């Protein structure tokens, strides 16, 4: 028996390696799917307010890299023409009614967008998970009929400006999309936000979310649905679009 032990261990090792693929690899694959070099998209946000009524807000957005993006609201009518520009850590907002470009700073960044379960920060978040988190595979589960790895993400030591210090992520084993996420506070036990990908779409050879669901767990409410109606990747966007001056044009 004693001789057998190393043997068994040897035999088991490759199996263990296969059951627990490199978490970093998984993150890299998620980032490859989710983080875009440049994209142009049309999306609809479905928000249910405190009176139980539904509002739909559609917007068109352009993004480049991790820190540059522009969103323009298309409907409802009173929001039409409102633009938000993110340049690095600064968010600018423009409304045609006031013809003003105003910086949204500090506390305002943390307010919810249009009464949804998303903050302005969440909206402009396009960072790579790999840069921000250390990951470990903690299990495998079936979620929404898809086989998933379950990952535990912890913010890297010394990484700056991570909104959620820990996340638990259910990653589709074949499509590498984070189908479900639980976002935790720094203490690791208080669940703050739930995120789900409710349906997916294939654009070229890339899987991308189609319907996403956000829910602020501590607050009462129905949660917010975010639907990507149309998206194009690797588009060329003129540089001037991402300038403050262009907002007023």
């Amino acid at each position: 028996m004693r001789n057998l032990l190393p043997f068994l261990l040897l035999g088991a090792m490759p199996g263990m390696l296969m059951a627990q693929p490199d978490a970093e690899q998984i993150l890299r694959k998620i980032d490859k799917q989710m983080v875009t070099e440049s994209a142009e998209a049309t999306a609809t946000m479905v928000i249910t307010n405190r009176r139980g009524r539904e509002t739909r807000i559609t917007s068109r957005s352009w993004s480049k890299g991790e820190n540059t993006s522009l969103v323009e609201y298309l409907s409802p009518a009173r929001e039409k023409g409102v633009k938000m520009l993110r340049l690095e850590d600064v968010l600018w907002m423009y409304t045609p009614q006031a013809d003003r470009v105003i910086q949204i700073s500090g506390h305002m960044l943390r307010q919810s967008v249009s009464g949804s379960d998303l903050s302005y920060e969440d909206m402009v978040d396009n960072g790579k998970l790999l840069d921000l988190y250390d990951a470990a595979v903690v299990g495998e589960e079936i979620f929404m009929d898809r086989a998933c790895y379950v990952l535990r993400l912890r913010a890297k030591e010394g990484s700056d400006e991570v909104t959620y210090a820990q996340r638990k992520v259910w990653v589709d084993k074949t499509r590498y999309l984070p189908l479900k996420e639980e976002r935790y506070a720094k203490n690791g036990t208080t669940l703050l936000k739930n995120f789900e990908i409710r349906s997916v779409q294939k654009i070229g050879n890339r899987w991308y979310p189609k319907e996403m669901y956000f829910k602020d767990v501590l607050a009462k409410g129905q949660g917010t649905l975010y639907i990507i109606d149309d998206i194009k990747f690797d588009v060329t966007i003129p540089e001037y679009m991402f300038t403050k001056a262009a907002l007023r044009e």
Partner: protein
Amino acid sequence: MFRFLMKGMLRDRHRSLLPSIVVAMGVLLTVFMFCYMKGIFDDFFNNAAMYDSGHVKITSRAYYAEKDVLPNDLALEDGPGLMEMLRSEYPDLQWSERVKFGGLLDAFDENRETRAQVGAGGIGIDFFGPDTAEQNRWNLRAGLQEGTLPQKPGDILMGKTLAGQMHLSVEDDVTLISSTVNGSMVLNNFHVSGIIYFGTPPLDKGVFLADINDVKAMLDMGDWSSEILGYFNSSHYDDLQAEALTMEFNAAKSDSTDRFSPLMTPMLDDAGLREYFGYASKAGSIMSFIMIFAMGIVLWNTGLMGAIRRYGEMGLRLAVGESKGHVYRSLIVESLGVALMGTIVGTIFGLGFSYWLQEVGFDIGSMMGDSQMLMPTIIRAHITPAAFYIGFFPGVFATLLGAGLSGLRIFKRDTASLFKELET
């Protein structure tokens, strides 16, 4: 007899003028004190009614539960319908809509770049309605320091200190950053048409007034109403009336199972002033009573002495054959004349001073500095109907009582001893 007495009074200045002046002074003090106390008391509660609570306020049940955070998203639906119903079914009150909201005011330079940002509170009031009473209620014309009252949509009035802090002057534009009832961030430009001095530091420091229709449009409220304020025509709060109205309205129009059904609240409950109101009215009554009582003693004293010092004369009159009753009656009639004259003059002057203090007011703002208390810095008197007759209690009754009591000695003493008093 009356003519005789009149002649006597007019010729003997000591018999008429001095007592009259004393009575007049006493009555003046009483009337002025009464109006002054009434003014302080009413101002405190009128302030609460005018700026915040109305005499009664109608909101949705859900809004009322969270009213501290101005939950305009929980407002009443169909505001115009409600207003129409209120005006036809409760015509005894003046109804006005208000919307309170918060936001950041952003002043900008010629390049439309942010120059200054300050957190501020806005109140949407009905500036332009065909029969709006709000301009008078807020006493806007009197408080206007510069510029004009709003003339067109988009015009606002800014608190004096707030405008100063942001270096805004009349004709400037300013952007408000706020969020709509749907939670969307909204930027809205307003035009400063006037700078106003409310005389209440927290308002001067942090409040601007905009037209309610602009505000509703900005906050995307459609025809919702956050707060509908009702004011009794008398313009002073009557708690019994407010309570009765509230009971009746809530029984008829409010549904405790529907969070969005209207709920009426009397001012004292809305502002949390019920206990204080009871306490203050009691304290006020006691103070008035003590003052009137003290003044009564003084004037009684006057009446008393007016009679005492004439015992000698009475003795003489009794000696020449006047009946005691006749002497006594003439004494009473005479002191009634003095008392009435003094009281009327005193009341006129008392009302005059009070009127001055009511209309002009006395600004103690410089003493108050930048207080955060929602407290008027202008002290005003308030003339009520009672002020017209309050002076008669000490002025006429007390004086007559004094004269009457001391005159009774006419009956007690014999002619000789009264006559003798002439000698001393």
